[in-house]
């Protein structure tokens, strides 16, 4: 189902539940004004959301309920019990529609508000308890009186009061009425008394158009389209007809019961006349109701009964007809209940409970890792239980992995949930900055963990702001450059392995690299020598430095002191990274790489200075072994040469122990890591294994310790400290 529609169903259900509760409370305490406001708001919101998903019938039905409530509010009178009942009926209908939407995945095309409309119309045409006629509905009576013949055939009365400005909107109210289905009669009246001909403003619409139509209110609403908000509709005669039907059915049931009663006193072999007459009456009753096949069955049964002189066949046939439909009805409602149960496949669970489940799953993973450790120990000791343990551990691991996938899946949501707000945002920014730009969304169905999806909003807003503000040029500049006057910003999301990539691409001016360098120099962000040695790619990365902003003017939209460094910080907090690519004159692409899930972090363990550390796998480019003489000093620091590129090297043990040793002659494993465009080498004593861990933020004494991202418990019970390489780069 469409995400918007799914959300609509979930929210509407909540509102309906709330409204039902409030209505019931209001029934008990009719003067509770707070309850009343709650009810009113719930109906109003429901109607609004129905409008958003273009569910015309639901909108119409709720509109009727809202009308009734609005009248009560404007007259400061308690809502009549009958109106509360009708509002509840209206909500029942809404629930049915929501079920239909959920099971079909679309708005039911045959949804018809006529019944609800008629319900409210009937209530409003009946004098209310006080005896005063409901105000505002005189026009229906008046219209029906003047067009009696049409009223007899009409299903809908319409009063259409176009707004005075409608002619300026190129609206032609009469043409709209003429185009409605089944127009039977029309009346025109002035909205306010007519001016004299010389004072008449012909372009201000002063018409009220009343019409009687053969079409149902729902069809009329559909045909009216957007103008329906200027219309009042009343369903006619259907209500009367329905109650007539009901009373006929009632009479028929009574007649059938009477025949049964008559036959029950018949003894076999006697009184053929009674059987014949009962058969004829019952058959006629059913024929009148249009149940001809049942009528035939009874006629046949009567013939059999008379021929065999046995009352039983006829008794059964009539009883079948009398109770048949009633017996079938609960069956039908049972199936619809089952259907409803199937349809309600979503339950809303509080995020806390999900998080608890996530936490427990995390503990389970850690505990399973511990079991793995125990299995290895058992194997080393040659224990006879080792094989059994190993098998059990294998199946447990599989289950834990499956659980982990399910739990991750529970927290997954499509990016469209947040992407949806961006088109409007870009529109507003583009209007404000007078830089015409369109936002194109791609791959909004891409899914990611809820925490990721929700947290990525802010960085994305900032990137989009930058794109509009700094990326897209003025229309004149664009035209001069041979580009389309309206800029295009593409927000694209896709999945790449365990990562979710979100790219913001604009077709603007691109980033002026020399200017970036100049600004960085002007603000003393980078040493002049370093600047000169920088490639364009590296220079582009300078925009992520704190304190960097090339905006020459502080605008309302961007340049509020939150730079791209904030974006990078926010993204790396999520375990992701941000890169930027730009071609002068062609545009800029900001690429945000995010982990799919925040539940599990993949790390590689390394040993340095006798202690085990974890390095997030995201950051690791490759691992290699430096041979003797591979490390050489550069000033006070060290470096290695990898594929003709000099890469600064740090020795993990030294950094953590804060002592410098001569590493020149050392050989050993080196981890090449990339962080925010910087590549660095980290020399360690030993490279360990790859682990899935649950990263826990540091607290207590270690909280705020630079260089550490968090900790995790290892299988053997020891604590693994996970490094935050970003701190090392700084």
């Amino acid at each position, binding site marked *: 189902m469409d995400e918007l529609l799914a959300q609509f169903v979930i929210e509407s259900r909540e509102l309906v539940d709330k409204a039902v509760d409030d209505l019931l409370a209001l029934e008990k305490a009719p003067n509770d004004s707070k309850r009343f406001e709650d009810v009113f708001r719930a109906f109003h919101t429901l109607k609004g959301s129905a409008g958003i998903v273009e569910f015309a019938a639901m909108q119409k039905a709720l509109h009727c309920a809202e009308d009734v409530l609005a009248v009560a509010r404007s007259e400061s009178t308690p809502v009549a019990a009958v109106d509360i009942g009708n509002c509840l009926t209206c909500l029942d209908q809404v629930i049915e529609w929501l079920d239909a939407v959920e099971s079909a995945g679309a708005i039911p095309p045959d949804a018809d508000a006529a019944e609800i409309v008629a319900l409210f119309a009937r209530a409003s045409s009946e004098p209310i308890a006080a005896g005063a006629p409901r105000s505002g509905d005189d026009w229906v009576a008046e219209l029906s009186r003047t067009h009696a013949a049409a009223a007899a055939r009409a299903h809908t009365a319409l009063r259409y009061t176009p707004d005075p400005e409608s002619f300026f909107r190129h609206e032609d109210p009469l043409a709209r009425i003429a185009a409605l289905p089944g127009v039977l009669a029309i009346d025109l009246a002035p909205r306010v008394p007519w001016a004299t*001909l010389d004072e008449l403003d012909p372009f201000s619409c002063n018409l009220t158009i009343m019409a009687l139509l053969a079409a149902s209110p729902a069809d009329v609403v559909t045909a009216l389209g957007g103008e329906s908000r200027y219309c009042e509709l009343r369903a006619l005669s259907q209500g009367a007809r329905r109650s007539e039907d009901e009373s006929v059915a009632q009479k028929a049931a009574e007649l059938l019961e009477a025949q049964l009663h008559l036959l029950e006193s018949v003894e076999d072999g006697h009184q053929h006349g009674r059987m014949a007459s009962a058969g004829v009456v019952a058959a006629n009753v059913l024929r009148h109701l249009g149940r001809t096949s049942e009528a035939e069955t009874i006629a046949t049964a009567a013939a059999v009964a008379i021929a065999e002189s046995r009352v039983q066949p006829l008794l059964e046939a009539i009883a079948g007809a009398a109770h048949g439909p009633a017996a079938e009805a609960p069956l039908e409602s049972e199936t619809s209940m089952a259907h409803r149960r199937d349809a309600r496949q979503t339950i809303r669970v509080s995020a806390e409970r999900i998080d608890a489940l996530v936490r427990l799953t995390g503990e389970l993973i850690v505990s399973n890792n511990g079991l793995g450790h125990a299995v290895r120990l058992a194997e080393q000791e040659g224990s006879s239980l080792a094989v059994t343990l190993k098998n059990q551990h294998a199946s447990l691991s599989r289950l834990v992995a499956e659980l982990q996938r399910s739990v991750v899946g529970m927290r997954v949501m499509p990016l469209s949930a947040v992407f949806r707000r961006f088109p409007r945002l870009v529109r507003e920014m583009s209007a404000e900055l007078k830089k015409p730009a369109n936002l194109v969304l791609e791959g909004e169905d891409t899914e990611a963990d809820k925490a990721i999806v929700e947290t990525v909003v802010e960085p994305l807003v900032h990137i989009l702001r930058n794109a509009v503000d700094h990326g897209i040029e003025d229309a004149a500049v664009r035209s001069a450059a041979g580009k389309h006057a309206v800029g295009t910003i593409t927000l694209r999301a896709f999945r790449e392995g365990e990562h979710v990539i979100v790219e913001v691409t604009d077709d603007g001016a691109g980033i002026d690299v020399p200017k970036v360098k100049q600004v960085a120099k002007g603000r003393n962000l980078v040493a002049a020598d370093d600047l000169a040695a920088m490639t364009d790619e590296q220079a582009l990365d300078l925009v992520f430095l704190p304190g960097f902003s090339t905006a020459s003017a502080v605008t309302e939209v961007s340049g509020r002191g939150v730079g791209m460094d904030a974006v990078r910080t926010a993204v790396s907090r999520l375990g992701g990274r941000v890169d930027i690519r730009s071609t002068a004159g062609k545009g800029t692409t900001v690429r945000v790489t995010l982990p799919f899930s925040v539940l599990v972090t993949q790390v590689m363990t390394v040993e340095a200075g006798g202690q085990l550390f974890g390095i997030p796998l995201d950051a690791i480019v490759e691992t290699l072994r430096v041979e003797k003489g591979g490390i050489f000093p550069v000033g006070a620091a060290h470096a290695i040469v990898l594929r003709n590129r000099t890469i600064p090297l740090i020795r993990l043990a030294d950094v953590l122990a804060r002592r410098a040793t001569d590493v020149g002659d050392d050989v050993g494993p080196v981890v090449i890591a990339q962080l925010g465009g910087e590549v660095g080498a980290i020399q360690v004593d030993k490279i360990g294994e790859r682990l899935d861990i649950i990263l826990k933020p540091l607290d207590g004494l270690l909280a705020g310790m630079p260089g550490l991202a968090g900790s995790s418990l290892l299988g053997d019970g020891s604590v693994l400290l996970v490094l935050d390489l970003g701190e090392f780069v700084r």
Partner: protein
Amino acid sequence: MTVQVNSEGAIELSGRCGADDAEALQRHLLAMPGVTVVWSRCEHLHGAVVQVLLVAAPPLSGTPKNAFLKTHIAPILNKKRTT
């Protein structure tokens, strides 16, 4: 032209009379009070034009062929004239 004064001095509405015709019609009706409006060749009347006809209530001549005008609008305009 959809609003014209014909050779007999009557105002003739023809074809589809849009909102813009309302002002012209109003001008003609103010200039010639009591003048007959011929609308047999009229195919559609915009609400703005109908407003002018309702207020001025000129004698109408002819019957438009358009079913909507003939069935629904003509009785209203004729009723207005007689009252």
